[in-house]
């Protein structure tokens, strides 16, 4: 019964998206949305869950929902901040739990009939992948290879990521290719992990924190920012619509 109700809700949400898509002029829909999915641990504590990994699991499920909402609305690309290089400093149990979650969910993306990959999304996993366990690096490669021909929607998942590391890596790539070259702003942009994606139109951070925490510093320096107080797993469809409305009206007034 619960599964049936959930399916009905998803269907209603999809139709609301279609109605919105027709009502709003196409220029008002952001092409690229970036999200800092913050507040999973606090969500777990608030709901008295035994293990913080359960909060991360709820966060992952929410990510899939939000990506589907984006895609249904006509957004072409989403970039999510899943795990930063600094998150390796968290307790070992939690890091192991997160790595296990990544393994499990990426495997699901590869095998599940209705997964994002099977429904036409291209998945790019960006960051310093060499810092991940070897088996996870292999899965990451398979996920990227399996989806590289998809072009309906692009999902960039930032794993072991720090924007400062991304910028330095870009500079090193340019220098390696041509050691005498004068480095320009354009060169750096073209060699970032996210290249050739457009800059995000909108950056959302949940949990009430009001900073970028080294997420897409280069790409988002002209993006519209939005800091939501809600914890990521609690981010609702209604709040997502408000975000789109916020973008629509700010975009119109600037």
């Amino acid at each position, binding site marked *: 019964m619960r599964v049936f109700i959930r399916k009905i809700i998803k269907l209603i949400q999809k139709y609301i998206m279609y109605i919105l898509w027709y009502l709003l002029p196409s220029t008002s829909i952001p092409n690229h949305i970036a999200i800092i999915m913050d507040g999973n641990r606090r969500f777990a504590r608030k709901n008295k869950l035994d293990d913080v990994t359960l909060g991360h699991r709820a966060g992952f499920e929410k990510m899939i929902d939000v990506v589907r909402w984006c895609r249904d609305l006509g957004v072409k690309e989403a970039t999510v901040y899943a795990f930063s290089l*600094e998150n390796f400093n*968290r307790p070992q149990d939690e890091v192991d739990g997160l790595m296990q979650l990544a393994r499990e969910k990426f495997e699901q993306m590869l095998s599940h009939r209705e997964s994002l990959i099977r429904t036409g999304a291209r998945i790019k996993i960006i960051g310093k992948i060499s810092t991940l366990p070897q088996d996870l690096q292999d899965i990451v490669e398979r996920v990227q290879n399996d989806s590289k021909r998809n072009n309906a929607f692009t999902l960039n998942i930032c794993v072991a990521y720090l924007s400062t590391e991304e910028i*330095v890596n870009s500079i090193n790539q340019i220098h390696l290719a041509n*050691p005498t070259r004068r480095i320009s*702003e354009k060169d*750096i942009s073209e060699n970032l992990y996210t290249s050739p994606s457009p800059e995000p139109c909108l950056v959302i951070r949940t949990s009430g924190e009001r900073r*970028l925490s080294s997420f897409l510093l280069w790409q988002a*320096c002209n993006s519209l*920012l939005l800091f939501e107080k809600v914890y990521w797993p609690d981010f609702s469809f209604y709040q997502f619509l408000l975000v789109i409305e916020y973008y629509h009206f700010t975009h119109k007034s600037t």
Partner: protein
Amino acid sequence: MKKIPTHLALIFNETYYRSKSIAELLNWCYMLRIQTITLYSEEGIEEKIRNEILRDLRKMFSRQITQDGNKTIMQQLDVCASDMKNRNLEIMFIDRMNGKPAIAKVATNYLSNHKQELCVEEFEKKVFLESEFKPPELAIIFGPAFSACGYPPWHLQFTEMYHFQTHRYIHWRSVLDVFTSFAKTKQNYGK
């Protein structure tokens, strides 16, 4: 207040500047013991406006206690007139050229002298040294859109950001609310 930023960034995303409002804002920041303020606008604030802001600020410094708003804010912050003396406020005007182009320039200069690969920590030191200012702990953005507008991106890693629709006729109470909210924040740097 438990915590006051040492460096505040004021980012203007507006076409019109009201020098008196900006000077008032700087004056309140001075009372709050902020040491450095960067005033950023994508195209840069014109020389004429800069001079007007500094002139208005000097006027305010010379009659610090007489303004009603200032009296209230000083009482609120428990600051007395003698506290205000011998304190420096560094004001810097910057624009988009101090942002991404400056990072590219630092990279070119560094790699022309050093042949080995760059590392993040070393490059960060260079970026901060060349820019001549440290990252701001707090940024207040004025304008219709809440956007950093090209403010030096490397400096914004851990900056707390707040937004107002305009800088004109801003009330000191609103600014104080931002500082109170900032004072309550705790960053755990990914841990």
